[in-house]
């Protein structure tokens, strides 16, 4: 069995007495690709923020594999709304900011850093926009830039929060294909509404609705869902793609 990068032990999170996550247990293994699903306000984003250290758990603890993964080795693609997309910052500078994790406070970028950034930008098909500011880009292009920022540091764990929301249609397949390639060298946890698309790529599920249920395979049987009692809309890919739309 592969190495466990991160273990959550009965983690609870509350925002002003409002419990968003309760007794969550989760083990993230090397090269896993976890689809994080669940209803709005169910605690999916909070789960990612706990792992990033942005939110302190009220109860429970997180154990990181010290060698492979400390807080410095996690890539993060937040939901679109966190940054100011009219801010005067170039594509290249945003991608480079992903390296700040490894930098101290005095943060000069070396020639190697800049070459690495150019390479990441090229892989994302954004070379021509490298010197443009974010305000000149479309939503989908910005999302690609932010993916570049998340992966430039070659993290062992990549956290993606609703990456499908703004990806333009002609890049979508490409985007998920990139994730498949990245998954060969890093574990991925991806929050998504777009269950139909992600089932083709993910290896396991985490179903989050205040409580967390982990399913170590990308297929969930109805019986399993019954037992866990998480009300979600689920679309699975079988021989023929079909949709499960019920409270179970």
């Amino acid at each position: 069995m592969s190495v466990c990068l991160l273990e959550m032990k009965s983690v609870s999170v509350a925002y002003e007495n409002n419990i968003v996550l309760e007794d969550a247990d989760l083990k993230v293994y090397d090269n896993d690709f976890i689809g994080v699903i669940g209803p709005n306000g169910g605690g999916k984003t909070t789960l990612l923020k706990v792992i990033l250290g942005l939110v302190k758990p009220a109860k429970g603890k997180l154990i990181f594999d010290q060698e492979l993964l400390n807080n410095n080795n996690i890539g993060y693609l937040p939901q679109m709304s966190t940054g100011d997309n009219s801010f005067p910052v170039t594509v290249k500078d945003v991608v480079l900011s992903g390296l700040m994790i490894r930098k101290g406070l005095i943060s000069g970028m070396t020639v190697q850093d800049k070459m690495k950034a150019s390479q990441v930008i090229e892989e994302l098909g954004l070379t021509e926009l490298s010197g443009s500011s974010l305000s000149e880009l479309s939503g989908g292009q910005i999302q690609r830039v932010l993916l570049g920022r998340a992966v430039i540091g070659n993290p062992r764990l990549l956290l993606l929060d609703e990456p499908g929301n703004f990806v333009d249609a002609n890049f979508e397949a490409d985007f998920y294909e990139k994730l498949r390639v990245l998954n060969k060298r890093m574990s991925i946890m991806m929050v998504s509404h777009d269950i139909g698309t992600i089932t083709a790529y993910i290896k396991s599920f985490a179903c989050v609705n205040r409580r967390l249920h982990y399913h170590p395979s990308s297929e969930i049987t109805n019986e399993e869902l019954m037992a866990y009692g998480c009300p979600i809309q689920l679309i699975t890919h079988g021989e023929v793609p079909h949709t499960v739309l019920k409270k179970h």
Partner: protein
Amino acid sequence: MEGNIFQYEFIVKGLFGALFASITAGLAGTYIVSKRMVFLSGGITHASFGGIGIGYFAGINPVVGAAVFSILSALGVEYLSVKQKIREDSAIGILWAFGMAIGIIFIYLTPGYTPNLMSYLFGSILTVTYADIIALGIMSVLLILYFSVFYRTILYISFDELFARTYSPYVNVFKYITTALIALTIVLNIRMAGVVLVISLLTIPPNIAMIFTKTYFRIVIWSIVAGFIGTASGYAISYFAGIPTGATIIFTLVMIWIIAKSIKQVNNIVMHKSNGK
């Protein structure tokens, strides 16, 4: 001979005053414009008038009083909006007027005539001292050092604070230091443009720059250049025409902004036409 001494003083104060004002205002202004903190900065500026009033009353340097007040009001807005859950723009509105009120009350209570009151409100060429210029010069050096050493750190925190928190535990420290430096920049520039007008010294130059460029570093450089042209020529015009400095500088800067905007507009139309063919 007396004329020569005046001319010498005029040139030295004008050149160095304009240079340091545009360096400090360009660096601080690009930050507040990019981060949409213009209203907050305007509030801080007006609140600092309370410190000027208390300074007069207590017989200490009004600039020191203004500096203390501006930093306290910046922290006050943060406290009221984050801890007390008062809407930020309301908190600014309250502190803005409160500082002005304190200033007026204390100046009223100060015995004797206060000739410099108008100069603090609208800026005056006559009251700018060499000490003011030197203070602005030191501030310029300080800001240049701060922004060049921590350029990326400041840029990235401003752009996406949440992401910056994933890798740096010092986000708040940087935010407070930067805000304090901006408060000080504003206070030192009050001598040039006055409490009422100084905020435009910070906001117009970056907006001129942003007509032509959209990357942070270039906005800084071009707002310093635009600021220098506007401040120096405004200063000269006010000297020769015998009209208030602050108002003339702001008027000149707005004229530059309108001209730049028109050039860009015309350029766009020409480009559009040639593309259409």
